[in-house]
């Protein structure tokens, strides 16, 4: 049976950040993830914002971690070679109520230590973001935009190169305490470990219960999104949010992503289904309706994709109000670090939370630093981003960069192959998509999907019926049209 010092349950952005931070120490680490790839839950279903920290209660973990995570992100993005732009954000308003609410959050932000918040007039707003409508705004220069999937993958790959082992497509079924170890029963066999870190996101209460840390309640706040064509985003560079309401919530908005697409949404409604990711006619129509008020390009000719995410917020069982993050180590389970209710700004807070997990572990034992730890991870070189002369040079060295597979996003065979041979062992078509942006363009795989599935088959020697789309059992094909063997 496999034995580890620490088992991290859940490979979302927080779980992967924890694995990376733990790999700075001399610990054998495994990460258990029930889906075939990392970041399959809400980590890949959000707006991709690096929050500044002005909507969180001062002194809360949300506030502290957001400000910390925000400040260090230029360095993190460089270390992990992930796309990031400190774009700033404008929160625009029209009425006196808007102004009141914006000023309230400006004050909160300042109390939280957010730097650079300033009220700006219409002229300045127009200079910063000509596409924004508003009489006045708050400008938050520290806000930024990133690709949450690339970030999650990068954290995982960096953890992996520093020794963490990832077990994908492996679900935790049962936990038991056997002497001074935990014995975890998974869908693919048992593992023992000294420490368990619960970063299971939407299933954090389930794992928390398994650990004997009962009584937590989370509620699912679901939000649907439209992704719009990059053409809709032309000329826009700064996320524009409408003034928050008294509770700090934002109405439907349209923001630019790091790749130049526009995201419309999310809206917000309650769901009970842990993985209720289906979009609905009613809510998509609502997004179009509300989106058009802010942005005129919310039209079918620009629709690329729709998706939904669910923010599992911890709520007070008696009052129903939303509570702060929980990150704890209790005497009932001294070798478990329990994270419950991690939702927005989870992306921004991932590494600060991970460092706090380490601190919790250090309450119990001395952790020796791993002298071989390397924080630098390189991503897949993207042909589409190079200049003509750089392209020429790369093609001389690696001709496979000359075979364009995804026409819409300009992704080449060399990139696809590197994505297929990813260090974590994720083998689905979506795993390739998330690592290269192939299939994310306007034809949604109409041209490249047949090629990508063929390359996956070739490179991994997979049978037709074993090619998976995204989730477990998401087999894309039922078999060959004409059976029989191929003579090589």
């Amino acid at each position, binding site marked *: 049976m496999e034995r580890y010092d620490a088992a991290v349950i859940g490979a979302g952005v927080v779980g992967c950040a924890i694995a990376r931070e733990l790999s700075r120490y001399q610990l054998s680490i495994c990460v258990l993830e029930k889906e075939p790839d990392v970041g399959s839950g809400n980590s890949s279903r959000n707006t991709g914002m690096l929050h500044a920290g002005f909507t969180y209660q001062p002194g809360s973990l949300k506030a502290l971690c957001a400000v910390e995570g925000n400040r260090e992100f230029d360095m993190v993005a460089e270390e992990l070679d992930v796309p990031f732009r400190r774009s700033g954000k404008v929160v625009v308003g029209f009425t006196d109520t808007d102004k009141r609410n914006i000023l309230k959050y400006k004050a909160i932000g300042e109390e939280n230590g957010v730097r650079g918040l300033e009220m700006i007039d219409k002229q300045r707003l127009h200079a910063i973001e000509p596409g924004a409508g508003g009489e006045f705004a708050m400008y938050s220069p520290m806000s930024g935009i990133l690709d949450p999937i690339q970030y999650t993958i990068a954290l995982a790959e960096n953890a992996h190169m520093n020794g963490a082992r990832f077990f994908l497509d492996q679900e935790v079924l049962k936990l038991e305490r056997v002497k001074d170890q935990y014995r975890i029963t998974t869908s693919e066999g048992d593992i023992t470990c000294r420490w368990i870190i619960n970063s299971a996101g939407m299933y954090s209460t389930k794992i928390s219960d398994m650990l004997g840390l009962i009584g937590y309640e989370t509620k699912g706040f679901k939000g649907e999104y439209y992704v719009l064509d990059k053409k809709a985003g032309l000329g826009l560079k700064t996320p524009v949010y409408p003034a928050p309401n008294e509770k700090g919530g934002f109405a439907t908005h349209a923001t630019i992503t790091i790749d130049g697409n526009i995201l419309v949404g999310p809206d917000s409604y309650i769901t009970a289904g842990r993985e209720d990711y289906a979009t609905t006619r009613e809510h998509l129509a609502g997004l179009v309706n509300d989106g058009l008020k802010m942005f005129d390009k919310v039209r079918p000719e620009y629709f690329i994709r729709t998706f939904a995410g669910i923010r599992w917020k911890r709520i007070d069982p008696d009052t129903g109000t939303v509570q702060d993050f929980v990150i704890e180590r209790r005497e009932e389970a001294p070798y478990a670090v329990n994270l419950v209710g991690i939702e927005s700004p989870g992306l921004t807070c991932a590494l600060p939370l991970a460092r706090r997990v380490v601190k919790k572990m250090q309450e119990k034992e001395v952790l020796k630093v791993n002298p071989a730890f390397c924080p630098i991870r390189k991503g897949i070189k993207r042909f589409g981003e190079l200049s003509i002369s750089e392209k020429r040079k790369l093609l001389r060295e690696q001709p496979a960069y000359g075979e364009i597979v995804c026409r819409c996003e300009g992704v080449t065979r060399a990139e696809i192959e590197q994505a297929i041979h990813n260090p974590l062992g994720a083998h689905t078509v979506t795993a390739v998509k998330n690592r290269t942006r192939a299939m994310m363009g306007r034809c949604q795989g109409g041209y490249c999907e047949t090629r990508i599935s063929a390359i996956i088959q070739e490179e991994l020697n997979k049978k037709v019926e074993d090619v998976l789309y995204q989730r477990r059992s998401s087999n894309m094909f039922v078999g060959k*049209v*004409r*059976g*029989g063997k*191929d*003579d090589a």
Partner: protein
Amino acid sequence: MLKEIACIMCPAGCDVEVEVSGGKIISVRGNTCPKGKEYVKREITDPQRNIATSVLICGGEQPLVSVRLNKPVAKDKIFSVMDEVKAAACTAPIEIGQVLLSDVASTGSDIIATKHIKRRGRENDED
């Protein structure tokens, strides 16, 4: 019984009305040319179809060669033809027009290749 058939003999696409009783054609109305009348009569008494499908190839640059019948067959023979096609295999290289299955399912029609398929392997030039 009245049946309406859209004639496909030319782009005019006349809607032809055929009166059928006891399996026999009583009248044909709506066609603007004799070809239409013939097509419609055939459709009622002895409908013919072509079939386009694929045959498995061994040793070719592609796994399948697209094929069709060289002349239409009776509509009710479609699945018998398909059974033979599914069981067949051929070897590359294949030339367009090459007969792969002669007198398939005893229809008097042949299955012919509709594409060239080169042989895969060392004999081909390296890129």
